[in-house]
């Protein structure tokens, strides 16, 4: 058979990112410890460059290695999402990391995690999927316990590695069953096989697959790990974990189920709807009594996963589109909120909500960003979250009205705990009145997140059109 011609331009982002990551790792070894701070800038600029490459390749679509690696605008859109997330996190976490560990390691691992996501986004078969997933996961494990001196960070690390290991084992077992019963690992072929003769064993395999990915997106009942890990991990990592890994897992979930399994989907929808509802309810209710900002945000991000799941219920372009839209705006909201938390932590060394007293006077900007991001998650117009939710629920309103009710009512309940934070930040008088100084990069990060959240909310037109295009390419395969 002829040797397949590989169009490497399709791989440009991945290659660039890998090179960048490796380079930083190596340079980290060469450059003396004192002056490694520059590496962070290298990473940031490099990420920007990769982002540029990816954007440039928007029109450049195709598949590699007989469908193992798919590059369509759907994948590219998600890649952009991840890279934006990585960029913002990298930009916002310089100071934070400086105190707890080595810049070069941190940034290279961060980039590897991003690379894993990129691979996941365009995985065309189970092996690629698995590789991307594990690359991301392992990188995250390192990052979660990056603060080697803190017991919490380490505990989070061990919890994460063990649980993630188990979940990926389950996922793999599912994959193996599916492979065995369909005779292929290429998603489209699997799809045909499943459509031709589904069987309980195959369903079991699928369930395990869902469980594995549900673990990553922290959908109830696979969510138990999330709050602990989010709380224990260094805050920027939490942000990346919440924004990036979730989005990546959704990317692959969509790829598998919406594109590949139309045959069995009919009786999955109800299940997904139930999962979504439960996730929304649990996430929001448990967030109410929280006292630690990170834990609160963790639960709220569980709820957010529930909202995104709503988009999966109807396996249609509208749903795909809604998910993509929401995932994108969710990145900004999450990163913004967590960045505020992280630089608040680096000033006061506390994550307790009660310590946020008087933040509006110590740093009006931080407080404003916090409020904006949280309310965007809650879906209060004119912020981005509102439009996102509108898209999501519009897809299910015809068949699953009850889900819409639950979702919207719960999102208003969520306002309750967001407002409790607001209350502390705005009403209470600060304990010490010293204004909080923001370092330039952090300020830029916050500014970007807030601006994006407002902008997408007020005029979502352009983004929604891009998403439309991407979602349509998605159905070509």
């Amino acid at each position, binding site marked *: 058979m002829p040797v397949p011609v590989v169009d490497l331009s399709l791989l440009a982002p991945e290659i660039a990112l890998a090179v960048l990551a490796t380079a930083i790792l190596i340079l980290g070894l060469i450059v003396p410890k004192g002056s490694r701070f520059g590496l962070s800038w290298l990473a940031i600029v490099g990420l920007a460059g990769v982002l540029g490459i990816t954007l440039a390749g928007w029109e450049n679509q195709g598949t590699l290695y007989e469908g193992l690696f798919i590059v369509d605008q759907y994948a590219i859109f998600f890649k952009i999402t991840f890279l934006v997330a990585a960029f913002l996190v990298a930009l916002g976490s310089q100071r934070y990391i400086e105190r707890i560990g080595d810049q070069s390691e941190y940034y290279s691992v961060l980039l590897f995690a991003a690379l894993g996501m990129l691979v996941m986004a365009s995985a065309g078969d189970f092996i690629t999927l698995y590789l991307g997933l594990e690359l991301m996961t392992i990188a995250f494990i390192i990052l979660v316990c990056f603060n080697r001196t803190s017991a919490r960070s380490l505990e989070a690390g061990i919890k994460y590695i063990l649980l993630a290991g*188990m979940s990926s084992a389950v996922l793999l077992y599912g994959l193996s069953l599916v492979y*065995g019963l369909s005779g292929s690992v290429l998603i489209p072929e699997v799809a045909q096989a499943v459509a031709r003769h589904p069987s309980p064993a195959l*369903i079991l395999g699928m*369930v395990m697959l*869902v*469980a594995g990915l549900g673990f990553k997106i922290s959908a109830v009942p696979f969510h138990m790990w999330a709050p602990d890990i989010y709380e224990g991990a260094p805050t920027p990592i939490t942000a990346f974990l919440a924004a990036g890994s979730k989005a990546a897992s959704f990317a692959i979930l969509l790829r598998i189920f919406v594109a590949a399994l139309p045959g069995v989907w009919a009786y999955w929808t109800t*299940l997904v709807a139930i999962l979504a509802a439960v996730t929304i309810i649990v996430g929001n*209710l448990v967030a109410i*009594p929280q006292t630690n900002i990170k834990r609160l945000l963790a639960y709220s991000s569980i709820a957010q996963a529930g909202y995104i799941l709503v988009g999966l219920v109807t396996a249609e372009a509208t749903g795909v589109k809604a998910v993509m839209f929401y995932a994108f705006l969710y990145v900004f909201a999450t990163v913004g909120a967590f960045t505020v938390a992280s630089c608040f932590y680096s000033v006061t060394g506390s994550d307790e909500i009660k310590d946020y007293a008087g933040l509006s006077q110590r740093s009006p900007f931080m407080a404003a960003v916090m409020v904006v991001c949280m309310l965007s998650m809650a879906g209060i117009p004119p912020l981005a979250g509102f439009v996102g939710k509108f898209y999501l629920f519009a897809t299910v309103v015809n068949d699953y009205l009850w889900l819409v009710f639950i979702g919207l009512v719960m999102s208003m309940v969520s306002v309750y705990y967001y407002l409790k934070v607001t209350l502390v930040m705005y009403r209470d008088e600060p304990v010490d009145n010293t204004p909080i100084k923001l370092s330039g990069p952090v300020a830029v990060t916050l500014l970007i997140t807030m601006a994006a959240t407002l902008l997408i909310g007020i005029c979502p037109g352009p983004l929604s059109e891009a998403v439309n295009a991407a979602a349509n390419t998605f159905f070509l395969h």
Partner: protein
Amino acid sequence: MVEYAMNHAWLIPLLPTLAFVAIIFLTRPWPLLSALIAVGAMLTSCFFATFTAIGVFTSPELTEKPLVYAVNWFNMPGMEINVGILLDPVSAMMMFMVTLVGSLIFIYAIGYMQDDPGYSVFFSYVSLFAAFMLLLVASSSLVEMFVGWEGVGLCSYLLIGFYQHKISAREAAKKAFITCRVADFGLLLGMLLLFWNFGTLDFAALAEKIPHFQQYNVSAATLALIAFLVFCGPIGKSGQFPLHVWLPDAMEGPTPVSALIHAATMVVAGVYLVARVMFLFHEVPSVMQLVAVTGGFTALFAATIAVTQREIKRILAYSTISQIGYMMLALGVGSLTAGMFHLWTHAFFKALLFLGAGSVLVALHHKADVWEMGGLLKKMPITGWTFLVGCIAIAGIPPFAGFWSKDEILLATLESGHYVLFAMAAFTAFLTAFYMFRLFFLAFTGAENPANHPKESPWVMTVPLIFLAIFSLVGGWVGTPWANVWSEWIFFGHPHHGEPNYMVMIGSVVLAGLGIYLAYYFYCADREKVKVRELARRYQGIYTLLYNKYYIDEIYLWLNHTLVDGAAKIFYLFDIYVVDGIIVNGVAAITGLFGEGLRVTATGRLQNYALVFFLGVLAVFVVLAFTSPLLAGPIWGGVR
């Protein structure tokens, strides 16, 4: 001039309005200037009103076909409300009367209100009142009239409570407003029903339509209901039983106010309203009966109370109620003529009496109890003699004004065959004479009270008294049975010529005379008043009952505080404990509890998490397996 006046009749209400605005916003700091503005405006309107009246009375067709200048106020599909001026003898007469009496009282007030801190404010209020009153009188549609109606209510509220720092004044004002409000509720419903059934509220249009109400498929019962509801308004405004309670308390206001609002003009607005919509009442005899009975009963009822009261203004207040009862009676028995005639004469002598009382009060530094007065006639001759004129007039001694109008009423009652009502009216006439002269003798004759050092009031106060006295004498001559000009002009349906009935005349005079004699016998003849005290002691029960006005105020007070406030409390408690407490906060609390409950499942033990994860997998699988049709097939499905 007449032409001009008639075409500019709208100026009559407008001028006092302007006076009000000017005083409130410009001349408040300069009391005398304010007073002059008010009086000037009033006199000008009076001037206009006079010529208007002349104009109206020189064009006979207006009685049948009133002259209307109206403009659109606001409209929407299915609803068109006009405002304007309606000129016919009745309204012209009222305008003339109001402006005339008003001017005199304003002038009087210049003296009466001397060195009162609220001097300017007082004149602004009374000007506003005059404006609303004239609007009410001149209005061409029921809505417009309602505006004036409520407006005068407001002004009376403000003026009764003019001495706001006195608790009693405050309460009286509130009472007056709310009592009238209750009554207006009926009037409002009546208006709505009218509009609903006839699609308009213009008097002219209604007068066209109502006589043929069957064409608008309105049942007689509905019409009766409407008439009754409309009549509720007058009951309140004109202090008819059972809503008369506010009027005596209203005497808390300055005396000119009592004279103007609570004697001459506002309180007779009810009578005027009934007269205005006579075409409505005329169609429903049942309600006419009701009006007559209410009037007759009120007349007697109030008179009995007046007999025992001690405060000079209260006595006058009850007499006012009673006299308005007369007017209602007249309307009820179908004689618009007699009713309006009495309204007209009553305005003069009652105003006179109040102003006289006022001048007495000033002289005695607001010591109101007639039993502590005495012998004032010598010290304040003008006041005293004019007051006497007023008493004679109200008692109904010819040739004074009261006699002619009262006679008309008795005559009408008799002719319409309401013998019982006639008897009541007659007896009331007797009582009236009695208590008025009781008042006169107690206050102006007999031994002087050494505690008092009265002196005659200044001319600004006495001149109006004299004028009013003159009117109280000659005012009635327009309607003598022999030359009854009045009934030529003011009538409903066809002019009503009461044949001079000498029986009635003589009878009433005799009754009045008897009353006066008794009063003389008890209160003037025996210096020590022993007989009357003896009498009071013998009929202790009746006396206290009358003295406490049949305890009606107490009953209302009880109703208000127990029922209304109690109900309010219940509603409020229900609101905060049930609606808010249980439902709203309950839901919130439950949500919070769920949160707490789910929270503790996060034990921090990673193996619990693993377990949950695995159970989740099983659960999902089971659910899926049972919802999907696959269990039918073999476990492995087909394998190549």
